[in-house]
């Protein structure tokens, strides 16, 4: 009621009419809309990657199968690799970072919102270019299209061009988002949010942004050179004309190895938020974990040469690769130790996010342990380019991107949508996926180490002793796919029908749980002063204290004796 006593006058004229919802989202530069687009698109590409994997596994179910022609198989393989890494795993991680980092650091948005928006749409443009390749012919050059197979002389259709353009656009988009994130983290932290108080997932966000800014341009350079080679008679990678096929291997492996580390850092960052929350105690050693994540980004990317142990690179470089790869044991070991030590003495509630997080730790440990043996030089000569390396990579990346990604999805779904994902379906999905992952990839360890079955082949021969392994792997992949689809369905169903979550359903420690679920466009009306690395716990304690509902709980941390 206004001061004069008259009812307030409503002025509607001159206000912009509210546009339709999809127009609002498509034109929005708000980090939550852009992050949402990335997460939804990435999960869509997870489904597509899964279909491609299933088609390949169907072909490899029995020896000398003729279900797919060699050309179709190679196309599926080429699409699968870029879809799984560049269109699913990386944007899922970046999407969660982009949605949550401003919320976690108490910012009302990002520093360069238009840059992030442009990035997301460049990524979608890249994805469109890749799948528009179906209109003519997709690439046949494999997961990592090694020159000179990717050169015009050997694959004269436009598939490789589509692959290169798509990978370039998507990578460029992700790099732009990373620039926005790094700037936001540098300049827009709430008062009191010192680096040492930054939530661990925001630390992962900072590390991954810088990592992406470092490795993304390397891939951009590589695909640009590839496009010049193919379209303007360049000779960067042409072996017989003075170029160097090995140059492509170096550049692409720097990007793919860095991406591998990025996916694991993102997953470990999310898990390092989930484990403490469901154990009711802080992360065992925050400082060491953050330092280790930084070390993984640096050392891990420097280990790119461990993919090239069978290339003509000279023994000294092989030792460099092995030193870097074995050095990774220390930071990965410290992170895994701290995650597991967080459980000890805690009050562990195994809800869906915790279940997926634990599954991720387990799968990542299996993948990394086998990668470790691959980096032992002479053993690399035996194991590289066998299906053993397929299995190792899939354990680590399915662990990181799918189990870790689903842990993050279940954990932050209430914040993003205001509703919790169905717990029962989540449990069934998790156990189906766990069984599927073991069945799908563990037999490949044996087929690779014992029988030396080679990677990427569209068929295998009856007499080579790998029939049973491949049949089990194919069945397991179907089980895994069913489990993954269950979670995707769960997310779609829970979007509008899940139980209402409230702003802090899990008892989280960082500031995103202070915002509404879903958050207001400007994130926060007011912000608390940040006085520690766990501002939400401080708020809960203060409320308990003031409402006089008892003693302030004894939450002081005590070092292990």
């Amino acid at each position, binding site marked *: 009621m206004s001061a004069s006593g008259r009812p307030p006058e409503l002025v509607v004229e001159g206000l912009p009419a509210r546009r339709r919802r999809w127009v609002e989202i498509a034109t929005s530069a708000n980090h939550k809309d852009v992050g949402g687009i990335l997460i939804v698109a990435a999960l869509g590409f997870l489904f597509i990657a899964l279909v491609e994997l299933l088609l390949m596994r169907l072909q490899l179910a029995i020896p000398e199968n003729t279900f797919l022609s060699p050309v179709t198989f190679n196309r599926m393989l080429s699409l699968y690799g870029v879809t799984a890494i560049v269109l699913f795993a990386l944007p899922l991680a970046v999407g969660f970072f982009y949605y949550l980092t401003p919320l976690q650091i108490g910012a009302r948005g990002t520093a360069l919102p238009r840059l992030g928006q442009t990035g997301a749409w460049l990524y979608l443009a890249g994805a469109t270019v890749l799948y528009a390749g179906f209109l003519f012919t997709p690439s046949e050059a494999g997961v990592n299209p090694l020159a000179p197979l990717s050169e015009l002389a*050997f694959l004269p259709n436009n598939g490789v061009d589509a692959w290169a353009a798509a990978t370039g656009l998507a990578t460029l988009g992700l790099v732009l988002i990373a620039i926005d994130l790094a700037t936001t983290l540098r300049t827009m932290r709430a008062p009191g949010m010192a680096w040492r108080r930054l939530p661990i997932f925001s630390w992962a966000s900072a590390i991954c942004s810088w990592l992406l800014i470092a490795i993304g341009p390397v891939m951009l350079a590589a695909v640009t050179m590839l496009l010049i080679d193919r379209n303007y008679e360049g000779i960067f990678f042409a072996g017989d004309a003075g170029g160097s096929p090995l140059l492509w291997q170096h550049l692409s492996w720097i990007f793919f190895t860095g991406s591998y580390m990025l996916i694991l850092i993102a997953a470990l960052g999310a898990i390092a938020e989930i484990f403490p929350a469901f154990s009711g105690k802080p992360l065992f050693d925050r400082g060491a974990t953050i330092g280790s994540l930084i070390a993984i980004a640096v050392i891990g990317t420097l280990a790119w040469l461990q993919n090239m142990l069978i290339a003509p690179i000279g023994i000294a470089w092989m030792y460099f690769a092995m030193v870097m790869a074995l050095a990774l044991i220390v930071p990965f070991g410290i992170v895994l130790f701290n995650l597991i030590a967080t459980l000890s003495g805690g009050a562990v509630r195994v809800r869906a996010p915790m279940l997926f997080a634990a599954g991720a730790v387990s799968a990542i440990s299996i993948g990394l342990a086998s990668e470790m043996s691959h980096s032992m030089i002479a053993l690399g000569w035996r194991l590289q380019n066998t299906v053993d390396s397929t299995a190792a990579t899939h354990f680590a990346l399915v662990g990181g991107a799918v189990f870790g990604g689903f842990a993050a999805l279940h954990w932050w779904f209430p914040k993003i949508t205001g509703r919790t994902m169905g717990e029962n379906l989540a449990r069934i999905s998790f156990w189906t996926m766990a069984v599927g992952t073991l069945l799908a990839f563990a037999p490949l360890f044996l087929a690779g180490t014992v029988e030396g079955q080679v990677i990427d082949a569209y068929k*295998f021969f009856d007499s080579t002793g790998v029939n049973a392994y491949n049949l089990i792997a194919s069945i397991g992949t179907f089980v895994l796919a069913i489990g993954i689809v269950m979670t995707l369905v769960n997310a779609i169903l829970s979007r509008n029908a899940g139980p209402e979550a409230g702003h802090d359903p899990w008892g989280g420690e960082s500031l995103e749980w202070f915002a509404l679920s879903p958050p207001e466009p400007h994130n926060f009306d007011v912000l608390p002063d940040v006085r520690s690395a766990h501002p939400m716990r401080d708020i809960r304690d203060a409320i308990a204290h003031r409402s006089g509902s008892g003693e302030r709980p004894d939450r002081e941390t005590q070092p292990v004796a």
Partner: protein
Amino acid sequence: MGPSSPGTDQIDTLLWIGFIAATIVIVAVNVALIGGLRRNRATRGAEPRQLTGGRRIRVRVAAVLTAFAAVLFVLSAIYTENARETPATGPEGLQAANQEPLRIEATGQQWLWRYDYPNESFSFYKLVVPVDTEVVLDLVSTDVVHTWDVPSLAGKADAVPGRRNRVTFRADEEGTFRGQSATLSGQAYAAMRTEVEVVSPDRYEAFVEGTKDDLEAAQDRVVGLLEEGRTP
């Protein structure tokens, strides 16, 4: 697929070391994880103990992990150097002047391996080598990257166009060993196999000489037909 050369013997030992190391890591992480989840289940009214790590425990964990990595490094280096060192030709092998190893050029091409022997004869698909002889395979490629991989005889290595790579081995027993290319090279990649036949030095000599004679006879016949004005 047992080891049939000193080099693969070393790789096999390293495989066991790698397998044991990986198993230790997998078992340690998963037992600790599952144990941690089961032991610390929340019970009604129990307040979690707010334990966090200190400097001492951090240093200890890092020390254990570093020691583990260092042991793996040393073992890998030892067995890698052993595997790299191919023993010289033995008494059963092909005796060449001044103990030179037998050099054969292996050319990867879509989708067949070609082997060029020192006496300028060549064979496709099947490589014939004498037993107990140090063999140096020079790997080259005329088109895309191929990987020569006969696991019973040697570690695998890439043939990259514009570069030379090298595999050395000494086969200790006669027999036929199969291998397959291990880098995607196009449509018929999966069918790009190879075979190494290890024979006695006498039979090796007979094979390369016989092949050379056959090639020369074929060449003469082609030239002869053309000179007579007929198409071969």
